[in-house]
């Protein structure tokens, strides 16, 4: 296979990692909403941990993006 084409396919595959992060973020917010529904007075504390978890999960998705950038940098 031509090397450039393979690199482009690899960059596309990096986007597949976002699916996992999407599931994770959805799960975090679903659980947060459910917990706040059960315990409305604990919302401030729960929201804090919710955002930390959100950032940690989102970072994993962005590692895939960084990998795509690295591949892109190696092509040209």
């Amino acid at each position: 296979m031509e090397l450039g084409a393979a690199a482009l396919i690899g960059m596309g595959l990096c986007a597949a990692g976002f699916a996992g992060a999407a599931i994770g973020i959805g799960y975090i917010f679903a659980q947060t909403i459910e917990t706040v529904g059960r315990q409305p007075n604990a919302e401030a504390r729960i929201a804090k941990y919710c955002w930390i978890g959100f950032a940690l999960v989102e970072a994993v998705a962005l590692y895939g993006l960084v990998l795509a950038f690295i591949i892109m940098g190696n092509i040209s």
Partner: protein
Amino acid sequence: MENPLHHFELHPLIHLSLMGFDVSINKAVIAMWVGLLAVFGLFMLVVKSGVRLIPGKLQITAEIALGFIRDMVEEFIGKEEAHKYFPFIATLFFFILACNLIGMIPGSYTITSQLVVTGVFAISVFILTLFIGFVKHGFHFLSILVPPGVPKIMIPLMIPIEIISMIARPVSLSVRLFANMTAGHTILYVLFGLAMSTPLMIGWLPFGFTVAINGLEIAIAFIQAYIFTILTCVYIGDVIHLH
């Protein structure tokens, strides 16, 4: 379409070199100065215009922002130690926030989209946590590598894992901020490129998304500054309390 990362490239405006190091002044340096000036100027304005018992609008803004950070520091580091680390954490928060927000001004530059900037932030936080740990606990600090309640036979396995997780902290801290800012601005660039290159019939759709993503980017600027400082608090709290 041209390379979407093109606008992250830096070209020196004024060539300078100091003892063999390249200290040329480019767009990022100027943006960083503006950011520093904005943060410093805001707080100086509050102080210079007189701190009153009944606060004005500006003073209330500054007080709420500082109180928010103080609550965060007290929660994760502990009330008795919080006052020592509060100035550092507050400075870090406001500087990262200013760096993130300055990128939202068209034509300016997002400083935190450079890995070297976020890397310096993260490594200085990492070195600070090690320093605090060794000053506070001496060699007993190394017990952070062995989580409590681990069976003796697992200790040779746990130590390398804990060392790896320690080293992964600054890496994830810096890459998270850098990748978030870079990704956001790349999405904006791509969407705006689509809006400009298509006829008006279809072009309004990506343009509308650009407006929405702009709002999201401002939220992300706040969230990422918050996350960076809250994780700094967690790491400092970790080495103070040793689990």
